[in-house]
């Protein structure tokens, strides 16, 4: 797949401005990013599954609208109530009455984060609103616990003349809501807090090392045996030095360190050795200590299969662990685990998120052959710019070429379009009279 820089070179060649006299690369790059965004937005052909945990979670709670400026790319929710003059924000509805000089009436509990609903028993006056990801374009479907939520209109629910927006239970419908863009509301309210996957030992950064929980997890790897065994850390470092490397593969340490172990000079193979060094008065029986993985068949308890490298795949006969692209750096590692059980599953069309493409990037969200349409849009914008280089005829032609791109990606977004179902046409009602069998010419005519 050519990079953005390759595409810009091609555009400059077609503009006959390889020296960037009339059009700078920065200008063309801006048009390129606009084309990328428009191609996905107009076609909504790039779709993915996203899990939204319940209750709704936002990175920030806002008091005033101007605080959105400082969200730093996160999601925010203004849970407070805005009174008539807009100068203040109220936590409870009774404050609005009081501010207006009226006698205040008792109202429901106020919350500032969604998880607090579990402690408010769900009885709140605020809408059950979920923030959508920043690269969200449109919703294709929402499911709660894999059950489809019907999209409804607020007016339809208002005809019930009930407090439907405070009703608790299993969610069954969704409305656009009165929230910001990139938000959706789901009812009925579910106040129970659902934690699917939690990152433990967050102080240890890097790769997830183990998975544990209510399900059984088994790690498998193609590399199952260790290449050698060692007893001290010094041996491990010596073996790793490239100039002295005499052994390859994974190493298994068969000793453990007592506590304390000043200078790290003592290592014990059996547990009773460590206990003796630590001054224990009664010693434990040891177990069989092995040096290679196959010795497990002979009773060795310390040899094990290695789970090496990074997590590549999770399989189960009961469900699919679907990898979902984040479409932004850093790439390669798993950053987030989410479960659709008892949560919202969103099927959404997406657009490119910030940061925008740089010259060394590739537009990975679209098929590689569609990259040419991005070039056509750049050429259209370049020739359509007022001033030197303005060529409306060329701009018009490249615009027509570009318009094919969103049409094509829209079609490709429904990847089943090529599998058409043929049906015989229905017979329909005959417009003609029924043919009568002709009688011989000599047959006597009968007049009725």
């Amino acid at each position, binding site marked *: 797949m050519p990079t953005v820089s390759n595409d810009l070179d091609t555009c400059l060649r077609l503009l006959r401005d390889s020296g960037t006299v009339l059009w700078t690369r920065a200008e063309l790059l801006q048009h390129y990013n606009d084309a990328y965004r428009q191609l996905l937005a107009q076609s909504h052909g790039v779709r993915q599954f996203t899990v939204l945990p319940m209750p709704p979670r936002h990175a920030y709670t806002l008091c005033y609208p101007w605080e959105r400026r400082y969200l730093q790319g996160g999601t925010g929710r203004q849970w407070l109530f805005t009174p008539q003059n807009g100068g203040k924000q109220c936590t409870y509805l009774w404050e609005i009455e009081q501010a207006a000089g009226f006698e205040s009436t008792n109202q429901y509990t106020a919350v500032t984060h969604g998880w607090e609903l579990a402690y408010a028993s769900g009885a709140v006056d605020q809408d059950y609103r979920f923030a959508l990801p920043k690269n969200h374009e449109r919703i294709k479907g929402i499911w709660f616990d894999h059950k489809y939520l019907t999209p409804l209109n607020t007016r339809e629910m208002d005809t019930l003349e009930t407090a439907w927006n405070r009703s608790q239970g299993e969610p069954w419908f969704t409305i656009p809501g009165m929230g910001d863009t990139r938000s959706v509301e789901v009812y009925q309210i579910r106040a129970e807090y659902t934690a699917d996957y939690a990152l433990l030992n967050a102080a240890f950064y890097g790769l997830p090392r183990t998975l544990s929980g209510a399900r059984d997890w088994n790690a498998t790897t193609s590399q199952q045996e260790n290449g050698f065994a060692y007893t001290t850390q010094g041996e491990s470092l010596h073996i790793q030095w490239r100039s002295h490397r005499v052994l390859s593969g994974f190493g298994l340490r068969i000793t453990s360190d007592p506590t304390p172990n000043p200078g790290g000079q003592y290592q014990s193979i059996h547990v009773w050795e460590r206990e003796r060094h630590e001054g224990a008065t009664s010693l434990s029986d040891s177990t069989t200590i092995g040096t290679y993985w196959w010795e497990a068949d002979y009773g060795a308890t310390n040899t094990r299969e290695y789970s090496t490298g990074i997590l590549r795949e999770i399989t189960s006969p*009961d469900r699919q662990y679907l990898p979902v692209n984040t479409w932004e750096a850093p790439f390669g590692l798993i950053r987030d685990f989410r479960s659709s059980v008892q949560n919202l599953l969103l099927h959404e069309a997406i657009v490119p998120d910030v940061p925008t493409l740089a010259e060394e990037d590739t537009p990975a969200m679209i*098929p590689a*052959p569609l990259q040419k349409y991005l070039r056509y849009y750049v050429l259209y914008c370049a020739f359509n710019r007022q001033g030197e280089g303005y*060529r409306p005829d060329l701009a018009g032609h490249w615009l027509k070429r570009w318009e094919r791109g969103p049409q094509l990606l829209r079609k490709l977004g429904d990847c089943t379009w090529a*599998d058409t179902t043929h049906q015989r046409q229905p017979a329909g009602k005959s417009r003609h009279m029924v*043919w009568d069998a002709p009688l011989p010419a000599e047959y006597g005519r009968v007049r009725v």
Partner: protein
Amino acid sequence: MTRQEIRDRILIALNDSPTVPIYFATSEINAVIQEAQEIVAEEVRAWKRTVYVPKREGWQVYNLLAIEPNCMAPFRIWDHTTNRRLQVTSMHQIDLDRQRWLTVTGSQPDWWYPVSWGQFGVYPATASGEGVLRVDCLVWPTALLDDADEPESPEPDHDDLVLYGVYMSLMQQFEVMRATERFVRFTDRWTDSRYRNELQRIQARYHQRRGRRDAYRE
């Protein structure tokens, strides 16, 4: 025609030397030829491939690019185990018929549905993961490897590539009228290419003898 022959024709049409081109670099013309192939593939939809995918236990969603890197769209998915063609449906349609279908695993999939341009799903997912799916798909052509390589399309379609190459080169010269004329001729050939690459669909008709005017009514 080989890539070199196509390139030579383009350069000759532009009055440039095919052996030592001055106004256009060889790599530029090669890139234009590849672009022409892609456009013809998108409009004519003649390039097809068959790929076999092992069914994975518990999987509903399959990644198209992992199956075939140049895949444009599958047009037929056949279960090789049951000798059954999977029927096309949509997630919305399955939602109308079944609740919580995303959690259902069965013996063999019966339907397939679109997820995104690069993903499709099968329903129900198999619990055992045995057997393979045959995926017939429309693809973009692979890039021509060298000057002796030939496009996969039939010989008459190679002239389309020459037309497009001339068109792009004229656009580079800002010769809009002449380039547009070439482009119109390029697009006019698509219909011919489509018919050349697939059988005309036979439309079912209901045949009936024409009625005869009843003699009694005269």
